[in-house]
């Protein structure tokens, strides 16, 4: 059979329509035993393709279709060197396009839009491809086969053993011409579609890629209809029966249907036989395993000769010219001595054990490289299984003592583990990018790349993109989305014909890859050139990323380091800095927040808004229900609270509170004694598989891994069968096996290892301690870092409930971030909406240069509005923001806000005029204004003078909502007409009305949608009023009824029954009604001017009757 050597998957981004799995499945079902993947100018789908081929037993052939304006050359890798040549070529092409701001997958420039830079970049990329491919063809052994059906290319490039004239089944009309070029022919089926109708999907994808409507994409940009699977297969059959293919010179699929085939192709028989033989030869010789061993980053001692590019020299600690194992050992022992004071035998023993395994497996460099990276940040938090390592603890990668907290190293590394270790480290969210940049600088840009995300179309995004390609305005699409969210079936049924088409196409592209994004923190560092291992390119934001996602780079053996962003690290950092500014110093070396009684009691109460990882409503309810807040239990709680484990949570609470229980099986008694017999941590799955079903360590680890995969379905079935068989063979009763398997299934989706939970619990305790002892500084840091789970409005309410005073921003008193002191928080200038960074920078410069006021000795406060306007440049819109937020109130000296705003606007205009008027425009405007006297016109209106008016409290609160996103001195509900005046219960009094039907007014602060066991949607909603926040439950029936009202958030009347469970109170919603929105400033009622008929009659005017 002829192997399809030319195929395109959806990883020919925004052009291809088939997933690699679909291609492989179709090829396997057609009886092919080998298949190439030759996506256009990219290899994004290679790891997925290799996986799919492995699963279906097909021999994969690795290639790329290099396409330019001059035609195409399909390159097939023959050796690993050839494969590296391809990855370099793709990276070079990507660099040319990226420089012009185009993504690497670009094949066409935007139609009808004149963009010279883009056209030139594409032309340059085309030339690059041509030159490189021509050079490759001339090499004695390039490790690649080149197949081209470009007459120009074949005419210009001399014959070579590696260059073939490609006779594609999709372009039969060209065959005769191609055979005349003198190059050896190769015959190949070509597949882009499974059926010709998919061409419209391709047109849509092309339109999305080009940013045009579907009607603007010409057929010439699409693959021919003959590139459909059925034609490829028929052609292949035809080839087998004597290569009797027809050519009608039309280039369409119709040629295939024309019969008899033999009569149309008899003159080419010998050439086609030769071409078929070439296909078979290429299939045999092509590279099918492009990936090799693991590629680790390499560490190099200071002072050593930098012979290996891409290595890193430590800047201290390890000494010069020593090997990585020696350096790691020295650093580990020094760190342990610092952590423990002395080195007790248990510590030494553990260190030796871990260092032995690390050294034996050759992971010393990896640890040392991570150690170098973490030195670049102020605060970090090691996460994942690495937190179980005493070496990580000693190096400062983690903060949890694995001996004290009983964390086992084997989950992280063990002698039998085949895959590389994975050390993930969190950095403060606002430092992470600079750490990554510094890492790249340290190791060299040519050796590093961030890991990509393959952003795939999700239905909503697909719908939006499709709608745009059909010219639908975004507003209309949003309305449709809301209808779909409410009731998808009804929305689809009531759609008009255009929207029906859009839905249908959107569904067809859902799941296909769309573009490359950047993984949240994965970075690859290799000793050689990164482009030798993987194609690299820049994303839209300019970050160099691998062509493959995290699974892809893992398959390719490239060991990644995860450097992730974490807001709470920044909260802790800022709170400590704030304390320092207030003259309070913490001894961080001796800081033991997990031992602090006040902190433990606060966590046990669930008073944890703002506290890392335990602030969600579900977590706070769990804390309230359990009533425990010590470190060990917090570790359990942060692991057990996962989507699929609800029923085990209830069981856990009851057992914690004394309910008698016995283990499901005697073997499990000891394994899960610390978690009351309930599987809690990710590693428990492996433990139970070994203990109950007799799995090997690696199989047990495999089942754990499968549970975390998105496409676990069929693979899990296989493991389930093995688990049942293994357990039964060990004499476990069927009902026990069922119960244990159910518990295993509660780990589907995501779950955590104990070490990870312990590491996070430590950070939780640090932030909780700050909240318990320095609430103002802590909440200021939470607000400045935009919190985590809740909005600014919710955190501001919580701060008020904590008894803190919220002070408005002030150009003299505020820092850029919020700052706390004593019982008050001063709002930060950087949190005023609408102020640009440059304006804030200019403001800081103008008052002395320090972001925190009055800290610098050269602090120059603004003494008046005029002074401010003279020293700080701002736009009209920013003037509104400064005034509206109240930042100038303290220097207004009795001027009302309107007068201050007018002064700023005048200053703005004067500055613009001073900067130079436009040649005609401004002069024209000035002349238009010449009719206006410089003195005010006689005032007729009923309004007061702007200069004298005092802004009302209500207007101030409305302004704060607009510019700060929250009110400061009152609850936002007070701005909602009628909300606080209606008969209702205040949330703080809910505990006195358990079992009663109540009515409350509440501002929705967060919502979490979940599915019931019957797959019906329901929702947990958190509201707050001026006294407290309260949790509510909206069951499926209520969800259907009230969900539309919830979509826009805001204030609601909530009615329902008050329920209590283990001391935690919730309201089960029976009725929900949306209250009017807070009016915008422009909508606030003003003194009504006499108008309309009333005014008319005063002046004797008459209203005409309609009849």
């Amino acid at each position: 059979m002829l192997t399809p050597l030319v195929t395109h998957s959806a990883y020919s981004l925004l052009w291809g329509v088939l997933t690699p799995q679909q291609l492989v499945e179709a090829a396997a079902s057609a009886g092919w035993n080998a298949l190439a993947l030759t996506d256009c100018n990219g290899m994004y789908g290679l790891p997925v393709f290799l996986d799919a081929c492995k699963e279906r037993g097909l021999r994969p052939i690795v290639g790329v279709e290099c396409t330019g304006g001059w035609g195409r050359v399909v390159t097939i890798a023959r050796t690993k060197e050839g494969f590296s040549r391809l990855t370099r070529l793709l990276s070079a092409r990507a660099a040319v396009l990226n420089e012009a701001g185009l993504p690497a997958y670009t094949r066409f420039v935007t139609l009808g839009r004149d963009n010279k830079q883009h056209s030139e970049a594409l032309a340059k990329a085309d030339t690059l491809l041509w030159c490189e491919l021509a050079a490759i063809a001339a090499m004695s052994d390039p490790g690649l086969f080149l197949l081209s059906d470009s007459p120009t290319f074949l005419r210009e490039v001399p014959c070579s053993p590696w260059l073939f004239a490609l006779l594609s089944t999709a372009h039969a009309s060209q065959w005769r011409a191609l055979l005349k070029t003198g190059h050896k022919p190769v015959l190949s089926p070509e597949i882009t579609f499974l059926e010709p109708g998919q061409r419209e999907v391709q047109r849509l994808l092309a339109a999305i890629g080009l940013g045009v409507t579907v009607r603007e994409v010409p057929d010439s940009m699409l693959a021919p209809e003959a590139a459909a699977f059925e034609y490829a297969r028929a052609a292949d059959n035809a080839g087998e029966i004597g290569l009797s293919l027809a050519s009608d010179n039309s280039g369409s699929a119709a040629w295939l249907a024309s019969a008899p085939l033999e009569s149309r192709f008899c003159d080419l028989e010998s050439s086609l036989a030769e071409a078929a033989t070439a296909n078979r030869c290429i299939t045999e010789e092509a590279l099918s395993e492009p990936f090799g061993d693991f590629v680790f980053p390499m560490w190099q001692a200071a002072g050593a000769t930098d012979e290996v590019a891409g290595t890193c020299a430590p800047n201290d600690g390890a000494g010069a010219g020593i090997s990585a194992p020696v350096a790691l050992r020295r650093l580990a022992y020094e760190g342990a001595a610092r952590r423990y004071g002395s080195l007790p035998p248990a510590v030494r023993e553990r260190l030796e054990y871990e260092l032995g395994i690390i050294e034996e497996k050759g992971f010393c460099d990896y640890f040392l490289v991570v150690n170098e990276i973490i030195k670049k940040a102020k605060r970090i938090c090691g996460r994942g299984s690495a937190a179980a390592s005493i070496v990580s603890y000693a190096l400062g990668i983690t903060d949890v003592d694995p001996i004290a907290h009983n964390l086992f190293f084997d989950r992280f590394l063990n002698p039998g583990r085949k895959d590389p270790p994975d050390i993930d480290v969190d950095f403060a969210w606002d430092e992470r990018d600079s750490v990554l940049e510094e890492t790249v600088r340290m190791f060299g840009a040519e050796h590093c790349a961030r890991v990509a995300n393959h952003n795939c179309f999700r239905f909503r995004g697909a719908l939006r993109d499709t709608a745009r390609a059909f010219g639908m305005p975004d507003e209309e699409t949003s309305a449709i989305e809301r209808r779909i969210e409410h009731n998808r079936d009804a929305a689809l049924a009531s759609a008009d014909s255009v929207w029906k088409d859009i839905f249908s196409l959107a569904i067809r592209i859902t799941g296909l890859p769309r573009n490359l994004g950047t993984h949240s923190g994965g970075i690859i560092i290799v000793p050689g050139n990164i482009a030798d291992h993987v194609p690299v390119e820049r994303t839209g934001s300019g970050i160099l990323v691998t062509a493959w996602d995290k699974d892809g780079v893992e398959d390719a053996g490239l060991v990644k380091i995860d450097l992730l962003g974490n807001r709470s690290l920044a909260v802790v950092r800022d709170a400590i800095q704030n304390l320092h500014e207030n003259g309070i110093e913490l001894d961080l070396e001796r800081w033991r927040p997990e031992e602090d009684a006040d902190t433990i009691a606060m966590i046990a109460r669930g008073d944890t808004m703002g506290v890392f990882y335990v602030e969600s409503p579900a977590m706070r309810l769990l804390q309230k229900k359990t009533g425990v807040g010590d470190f060990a239990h917090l570790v359990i709680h942060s692991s057990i609270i996962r989507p699929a484990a609800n029923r085990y949570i209830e069981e856990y609470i009851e057992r914690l509170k004394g309910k008698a229980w016995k283990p499901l099986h005697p073997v499990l008694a000891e394994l899960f004694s610390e978690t009351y017999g309930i599987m809690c941590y990710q590693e428990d799955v492996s433990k139970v598989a070994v203990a109950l079903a007799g799995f090997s360590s690696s199989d047990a680890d495999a089942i754990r891994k499968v549970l975390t995969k998105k496409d676990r379905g069929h693979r899990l079935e296989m493991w389930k069968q093995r688990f049942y068989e293994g357990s039964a063979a060990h004499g476990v009763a069927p009902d026990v096996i069922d119960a244990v398997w159910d518990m295993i299934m509660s780990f589907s989706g995501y779950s955590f290892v104990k070490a990870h939970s312990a590491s996070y619990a430590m950070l939780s305790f640090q932030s909780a301690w700050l909240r318990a002892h320095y609430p103002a500084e802590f909440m200021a840091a939470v607000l400045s870092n935009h919190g985590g789970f809740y909005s600014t409005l919710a955190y501001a309410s919580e701060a008020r409930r904590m008894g803190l005073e919220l002070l408005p921003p002030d150009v003299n008193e505020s820092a850029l971030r919020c700052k706390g002191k004593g019982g008050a928080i001063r709002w930060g200038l950087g949190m005023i909406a609408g102020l640009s960074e440059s304006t804030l920078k200019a403001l800081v410069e103008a008052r002395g240069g320090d972001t925190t006021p009055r800290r610098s000795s050269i602090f120059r406060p603004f003494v008046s509005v005029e002074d401010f306007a003279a020293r700080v440049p701002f736009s009209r819109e920013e003037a509104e923001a400064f005034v509206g937020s109240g930042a100038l109130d303290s220097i207004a000296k009795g001027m009302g806000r309107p007068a201050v705003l007018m002064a700023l606007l005048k200053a703005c205009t004067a500055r613009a005029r001073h900067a130079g008027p436009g040649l005609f425009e401004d002069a024209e405007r000035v002349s238009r204004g010449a009719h206006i006297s410089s003195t005010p016109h006689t005032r007729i209106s009923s309004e007061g003078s702007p200069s004298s008016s005092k802004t009302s409290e209500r207007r101030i609160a409305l302004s704060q909502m607009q510019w700060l996103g929250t009110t400061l001195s009152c609850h936002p509900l007070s701005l909602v007409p009628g909300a606080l005046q209606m008969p209702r219960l205040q949330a703080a009094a809910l505990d006195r009305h358990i079992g009663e039907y109540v009515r409350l007014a509440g501002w929705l602060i967060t919502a979490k949608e979940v599915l019931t066991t019957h797959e019906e949607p329901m929702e947990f909603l958190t509201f707050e009023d001026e006294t407290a926040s309260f949790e509510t439950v909206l069951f499926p029936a209520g969800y259907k009824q009230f969900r539309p009202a919830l979509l826009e958030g805001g204030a609601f009347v909530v009615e329902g029954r008050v329920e209590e469970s283990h001391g935690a109170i919730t309201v089960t919603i029976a009725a929900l009604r949306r209250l009017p929105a807070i009016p915008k400033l422009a909508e606030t009622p003003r003194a009504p001017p006499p108008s309309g008929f009333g005014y008319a009659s005063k002046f004797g005017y008459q209203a005409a009757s309609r009849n």
Partner: protein
Amino acid sequence: MTSGTIIHVNVIGLMAAVEEIVDPGVRGRPFVVARPDIPRAIVLDLSPEAYREGVRRGMLVQTACARVRALKVVPPRPELYEKVDQSLLEAAFCFTPLVERAGRGHLFLDVNGTRRLFGAPEDVARRLLGEIADQTGLVPTVALASTKTAAKVASRVFRPFGFAPLSVNDEGELVARQPVELLPGVGVKLLPRLISLEIGEIGTLASLSMDEAQAISARGPELVLRARCVDDSPVNPEPPSRRMLAGETVFEPDCADPDLLAWRAREIVAELGFRMRKEGFGAHFVMAKLVYTDGAVASRSVRAGQGASFVADIQLCEAAERAVRQAWERRVRVRKLQIELGGFEPAGPELDLFEPLPFFKAEPEIDSTGIQTRRIAMHMRVQSALDRVHGKYGQSAIVPAAAFLYREGSLVC
């Protein structure tokens, strides 16, 4: 009472008002005027009851129906509306030749100097109101003031119907005490700023000094003058067709096809071009105005070079297509396309069908409109013949073959 002489006649929702008169059964009910049988049809006009239920002009009919269960959809009758509009105009011409057409259902009249014929302006306005009611059954808002701005603000105050004859002494006060959002030119961007400045009434805006006016916005001085009712723009009686020629097409369903858009532009411009040439004019500019399906508007003009004008269809069509292409910047469907020809200048002698030497010079090869002169010269001879045929047998007598590609907005072959 001394009043001004400018009358503003404002028929709010002319189409819906006409429908209420024609079919009293819909009166008091929520209804919209729209084409019910077309996918993605939009609300062309609506009754006050529908407005109160949240329906708006330009909204998709489907959305409107989803919002108001009992909404009635009345098919539009363009000829009838045109007839009514013409009746309004005729009623106005009974009192003064100075009538400006400011859009469908909007007229400005200047009755200065008609006192001896028809009495005081208040009487004229009152009689006009009666005349319109008699002729059409409509009851518009009629405002009388000394400037167009004051009259327009007053009619906004008293709409949907009423009679507001303002005295010169009072009109400043009336306008001054109205909410600032009633002043033409105050939009969603400026309004919040004015409110922050506690400028809630037009009078407060009027009291701003020159510096203050410039400070509030680049167009502040204009607005302040308007707020003071300083408006010296005269009522322009020249028919719009003398100032410019305009034609439009509404796409139902809305259009996302550049070829169809270009074709419709050609159709419109061919008709306008015929009318223009008939008057012996050429156009200095061609303007394309697009109304997107979400209501946003974009327009672009293509101008002929200095001293040149577009005369032949080939020039007009190319200019129109270029203008459409430039205007269609957003990837959003187009609901309405309007083409305007303006800047009319005499086009020179009419060409003879078989005369080889046209008035165009042989050089330069490329004229100032960017089109090959020789090609135009050849085309002009055909154009002349075509115009004669169109004049005699109508526009549809001869059409380009490409016209058969489109039927009701879709490509048929």
